[in-house]
């Protein structure tokens, strides 16, 4: 059976991209991990890798082709031993596969098929008000209109919005060259901020005088954060569960591991929290879930997103399949991701998606706190400082190092009992850390 290599979605909102360069040619042997092509999206140019072994028998999309829809086959791979003749009855299956729009229309949505195929959550596209010229420009520049707020009547996206977005993006959005926000783009305008609806004028209406503050234009990370977190706080009915964990054993084990490990591995508490979270998700697979209007997606792997503070905001690189990774691998990966996050060199695939997240403010002395769920994650774990506290053990006062964690759950997918069950597993791993070494 020939394998179709599909146009990947490199970001959650990506609908199409440009196949800027093929890195292989027809007839090439490839194995998993080989680079196949360069894909250009609104945000960056990225390489895609082969996931299967075989021979590339056909490139379906010519180089430089823009507007290649996500999930459209771009090449055909034959596995070893397969005959090229099996291609004879090949037809592009996606032509019959409904795209997002038709899903919206037809009742008999095949969203199940599509969703199951990749485990991807399919977003329902809303109707975006935009001028024809703005649509033309966005298509040409490969910009997702969802990312843009319109300044025309009733929020209509007009040419200037695209131009401003491009201006902003030049300095902000490309992850490989994330830079300081572009303060200069608006400096020639006499108006404070370029926003014409709401915007800075809102402040004036609320009694804050123009000129009494500096208005720093939003960069794209800030725009994305504000949109996603606002969506979350409006749409996600969340609740917190708090539990105390004794971590003396965990600290002891960590010390031991680091003494025994080579100088290149230094396992942090956080690495152990990632591992414990992933294992707990494995125990409670129904908690490794995302809400979609069409059903609850139960993820097959625990992809743990870890909040990393960077200069202009926050980014959450992801340890993929953390349930299948040992502590040293998690540690190495996390170190690399965090370093590159601070240098703003992460690829979107490295920070978009995930099934669960961890936010740790313990190193800043925070005792306990709650976080906002970042969809598609079903839960987020907020980790406080581990410090020595008096506890009562078997009727006597004792001292132990206690870390308080708060699990915020999306009640649409995780109820109290399930969240509590997950926390019990987590607490057990933390308090008996040797179990997570198994």
């Amino acid at each position, binding site marked *: 059976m020939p394998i179709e290599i599909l146009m990947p979605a490199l970001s959650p909102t990506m609908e199409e991209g440009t196949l800027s360069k093929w890195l292989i040619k027809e007839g090439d042997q490839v194995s998993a991990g080989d680079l196949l092509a360069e894909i250009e999206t609104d945000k960056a140019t990225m390489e895609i890798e082969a996931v299967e072994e075989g021979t590339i028998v056909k490139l379906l999309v010519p180089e430089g082709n823009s507007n290649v829809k996500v999930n459209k086959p771009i090449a055909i791979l034959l596995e070893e031993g397969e005959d090229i003749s099996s291609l004879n009855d090949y037809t592009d299956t996606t032509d019959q596969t409904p795209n997002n729009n038709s899903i919206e229309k037809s009742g008999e949505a095949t969203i199940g098929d599509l969703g199951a195929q990749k485990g991807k959550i399919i977003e329902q596209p809303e109707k975006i008000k935009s001028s*024809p*010229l703005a649509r033309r420009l966005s298509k040409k520049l490969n910009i997702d209109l969802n990312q843009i707020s319109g300044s025309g009547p009733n929020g209509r996206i007009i040419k200037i919005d695209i131009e401003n977005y491009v201006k902003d993006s030049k300095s902000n959005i490309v992850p490989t060259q994330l830079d300081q926000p572009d303060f200069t783009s608006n400096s020639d305008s006499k108006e404070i901020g370029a926003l014409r609806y709401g915007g800075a*004028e809102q402040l004036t209406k609320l009694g804050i005088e123009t000129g009494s503050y500096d208005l720093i234009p939003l960069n794209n990370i800030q725009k994305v954060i504000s949109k996603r977190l606002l969506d979350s706080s409006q749409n996600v009915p969340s609740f917190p569960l708090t539990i105390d964990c004794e971590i003396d054993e965990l600290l002891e084990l960590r010390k031991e591991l680091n003494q025994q490990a080579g100088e290149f591995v230094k396992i942090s508490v956080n690495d152990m929290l990632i591992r414990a979270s992933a294992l707990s998700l494995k125990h409670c697979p129904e908690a490794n879930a995302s809400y979609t209007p069409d059903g609850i997606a139960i993820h097959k792997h625990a992809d743990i997103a870890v909040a990393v503070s960077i200069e202009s905001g926050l980014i959450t690189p992801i340890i993929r399949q953390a349930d299948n990774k040992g502590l040293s691998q998690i540690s190495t990966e996390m170190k690399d991701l965090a370093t590159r996050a601070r240098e703003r060199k992460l690829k979107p695939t490295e920070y978009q998606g995930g099934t669960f997240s961890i936010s740790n403010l313990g190193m800043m002395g925070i005792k306990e706190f709650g976080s906002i769920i970042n969809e598609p994650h079903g839960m987020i774990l907020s980790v406080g400082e581990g410090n020595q506290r008096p506890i009562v053990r078997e009727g006597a006062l004792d001292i132990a190092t206690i870390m308080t964690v708060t699990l915020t759950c999306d009640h649409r997918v995780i109820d109290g009992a399930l969240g509590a069950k997950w926390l019990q597993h987590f607490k057990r791993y933390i308090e008996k850390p040797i179990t997570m070494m198994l």
Partner: protein
Amino acid sequence: MSDANFDVIIIGSGPGGYVTAIRSSQLGFKTAIVEKDSLGGVCLNWGCIPTKALLRSAEVYSNMKHAEEYGLSASPQFNLKSIVQRSRNIANQLSGGIKHLMSKNNITIIDGFASLQPGKVAPEVRVEGKIYQAKHVILATGARARTIPQAGLKPDGKYIWSAKEAMIPDTMPNKLLVIGSGAIGMEFASFYNAFGSKVTVVEMEDRILPAEDEEISALAKKAFSKRGIEIITNSKATLKVVENGVEAVLENISESKTKTYERVVLAIGIVGNTENMGLEKLGVKVNKNHISVNEYSQTNVKGLYAIGDVTTPPWLAHKASHEGIICIEKIAGRNPEPLNPISIPGCTYCHPQIASVGYTEKQAIKAGFKIKVGKFPFVGNGKAIALGEPEGLIKTIFNEETGELIGAHMIGAEVTELIQGYTIAQKLETTEHELMETVFPHPTLSEMMHEAVLDAYNRTIHF
């Protein structure tokens, strides 16, 4: 509040001032408008409207002269006095209409010449010795005909006319010299030519209607020459009043000719009315008789704004009105979108008419656009032929990369009524695609607008 205290005082009641006053009142401001002369300003009393009345007489007369082509007969004659009277009546009717609009909107009319003096929140306005105060003062004082006295280019009260005198002629001159070939010059050239004057137009630039697209300008020259108007370009004129007329020296690089004309119309541009209002004392930034403002018409002086002809070009009535609305909405804390200069259409009501918006072909190329140009001639349009108006062209300029309509240029019958179709398209940011898909009614002149879009993409049907 006393009767000398207002939220907004607008100085000048032309299409900038009176429109702004009405919007100001709609927005809830206590508004006053100061006018030294008749309500409506130059546009209504001595510009746009009375000249359209005159040109309509010329058009009807011209049609009568061509009656036979339509199977009719007529022996046309004209009475200049009546033509002028009709034009004046129309101006007076409309000025009365503005008075009604002012009272309907509770706008106080202050008669007299205003000057400004420093005030607390905004300059104070002094009219006929009385001081008025307002939070916001908007200058809409307009402009007047430019003169160059050193070259004799100034009205003399009899033989040398500015636009104002040319609107109320005492005689239909046998030989008329029009200096300047912009919109005003060409409209008067058209008018006097229609009634039999031997008209000469002299222009300093290398072509008439120098602000228009070169191709349109060339077609206009052809059309005017055909009607018997003499066109002299690349030339300067100096004037001397002699007995019963004016002696004009017309000079180009190589030669100088002296000719005598019965009357001369000066149409060499305008200057802003910035004098004697105390602007210097307030420190208002004025550049060559025009007040410098930002995109919301704010001057460099607190509480003082300026709109229309007294500010920067283009000097057009509709630009003044729009600027005024943007200015007052900004004052009211709204978020108006500043005017985009490429979306301000310009119209000239000569025969044939000329209308345009946005970049000329040359400007577009100079600005670095990759362009697609579409053209469609009147001779390919059924309605134009049925009207007996097969002369003209519609031209579109698209940004090749985005499909944005960045310019449109027209010459021919009724094009001044057509151009709005393209400006709406521009404002809505349509691309060639939506314009192609738009259904234009048949048979109309507007079909040419469709064809000119199709032609830019090599899809024209009827030519």
